[in-house]
């Protein structure tokens, strides 16, 4: 009887029972000239005040999301024998990068109700108010966005990619592609039991251009006229240099 009461108590207040303690292999990613993608290791432990509750096994979900931005998705159709962009749908906010790593297949880790509540799987992260009535099959535009970004490894679903030791320690690795947009990336960790989120934790990873890349980028935005002139000066001097070099070469 006592045991039953204890179990019920744990079920009523599951949030305080298990808590995430987190570590990151890096909390910033600097994009330099020879940047060729990066790996981020996310690891942590689960702190408990009481013994692990009974029920389904503990599962972990790790997501890493780039900054949200609006995206315009266009669709081609055949008009008079030529393939032309006809319909376009604006997706209000989609992350430039999104990876979701789980400790077991997604359907075992998270119920769809919880997914809807927390916005974890890729289709739930993308916010689209809806297409104008004139566009047919508007949901295919969001699917196309996911398909194209998944093709370039900007959207990743990493099933069973998180290791859990003794229901306490966990670790997962996410590979950032070389073609990366800068901004504040958000790492989000959820622990679930029976598909229900028990605790979640959020932290930021700053992704930014550094060194020469930073300098050139800032200059192209802040002094576009001089940036243009500098480009032309480089072009003209390179042209002259090659010509002069070939003259010496030929003598």
């Amino acid at each position, binding site marked *: 009887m006592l045991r039953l009461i204890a179990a019920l108590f744990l079920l009523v207040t599951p949030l305080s029972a298990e808590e995430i303690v987190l570590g990151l292999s890096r909390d910033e990613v600097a994009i330099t000239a020879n940047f060729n993608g990066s790996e981020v290791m996310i690891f942590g432990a689960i702190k408990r005040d009481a013994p692990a509750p009974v029920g389904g096994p503990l599962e972990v979900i790790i997501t890493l999301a780039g900054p949200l931005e609006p995206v315009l998705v266009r*669709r081609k159709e055949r008009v008079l024998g030529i393939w032309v962009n006809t319909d376009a749908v604006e997706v209000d906010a989609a992350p430039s990068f999104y990876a979701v790593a789980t400790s077991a297949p997604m359907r075992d880790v998270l119920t769809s109700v919880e997914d809807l509540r927390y916005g974890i799987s890729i289709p739930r992260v993308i916010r689209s108010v809806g297409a104008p009535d004139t566009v047919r099959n508007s949901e295919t535009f969001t699917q196309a966005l996911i*398909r194209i970004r998944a093709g370039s490894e900007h959207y990743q679903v990493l099933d069973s990619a998180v290791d859990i030791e003794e229901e306490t320690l966990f670790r997962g690795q996410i590979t950032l592609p070389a073609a990366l947009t800068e901004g504040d990336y958000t790492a989000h960790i959820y622990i679930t039991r029976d598909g229900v989120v028990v605790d979640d934790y959020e932290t930021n990873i700053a992704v930014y251009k550094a060194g020469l890349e930073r300098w050139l980028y800032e200059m192209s935005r802040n002094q576009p006229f001089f940036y243009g002139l500098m480009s032309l000066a480089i072009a003209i001097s390179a042209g002259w240099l090659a010509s002069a070099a070939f003259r010496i070469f030929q003598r």
Partner: protein
Amino acid sequence: MQIYLPIAEVSVNAFLLLGLGGIVGILSGMFGVGGGFLMTPLLFFIGIPPAVAVATEAVQIVASSFSGVLAHLRRKSVDLKMGTVLLVGGLIGAAIGVVLFNYLKSLGQVDLLVKLCYVVFLGIIGGLMFIESWRAIRRSKVPGSRPVRRKHGLVHALPLKMKFRVSGLYISVIPPLIIGLCVGILAAIMGVGGGFIMVPAMIYLLGMPTKVVIGTSLFQIIFVTAFTTMLHATTNFTVDIVLAVLLLIGGVIGAQIGTRIGVKMKAENLRILLAMMVLLVCGKLAFDLLVMPSELYSLGTGGDH
């Protein structure tokens, strides 16, 4: 060796870009075309965003054209006077073209128009050049046949005549001005220097000798594309200098080699090669428009329509 491009925000192989620049540079020096009509689709293909590709390509064209012009100047195969007249028309045309381009953009479908422009112009120019130079090659193989004399048509009846010594012409400045203007408009809409239209126009409409045409074309391309570069850099912020440097290192060296190959070749052979290249690009673009693409959807930046 991968290099991250700061403006394009993608990572690409540096040697691939050097190689591409070199190939386009050779063609540029040989035929007097900027090579934008070849390079821009190639850059799309390796994943550079279209806006960055078009703007950055202009910088590379400035470099390889300048390199090529210096080589031509030493051979005295540049008609500076004719080049200046064409340039005046070209800059006026480019200004009109930019206005026209923005108007079409507001209507939507500007991408399609640009592609159709390419297919139609490349097709017509390439086809005509191919037929003409093929005939010229056959004629030169028959011994004893006389070269065709230049026609004295409308070009010679107009006022404001001027002597173009390097080209060996005494014609009115009106036709070159109009040609410059038309090419300028087209170049601004299609986002290229316009060499592949200018070269045939100079050969067939003005009757300039092929050898002079190449240097003169390069001369005026420098100014037109320098103008385009500044326009893109200050309004769209899409010039990627790292990408430009990688492309132009290959480009300037290629242009020097191309100029030397061009000088050694016979004019007809040079023209037929250019014609074939133009037709090839035309065929590829037409194919893309007519055949169902593997991915029907494409992504663009949101926030503007």
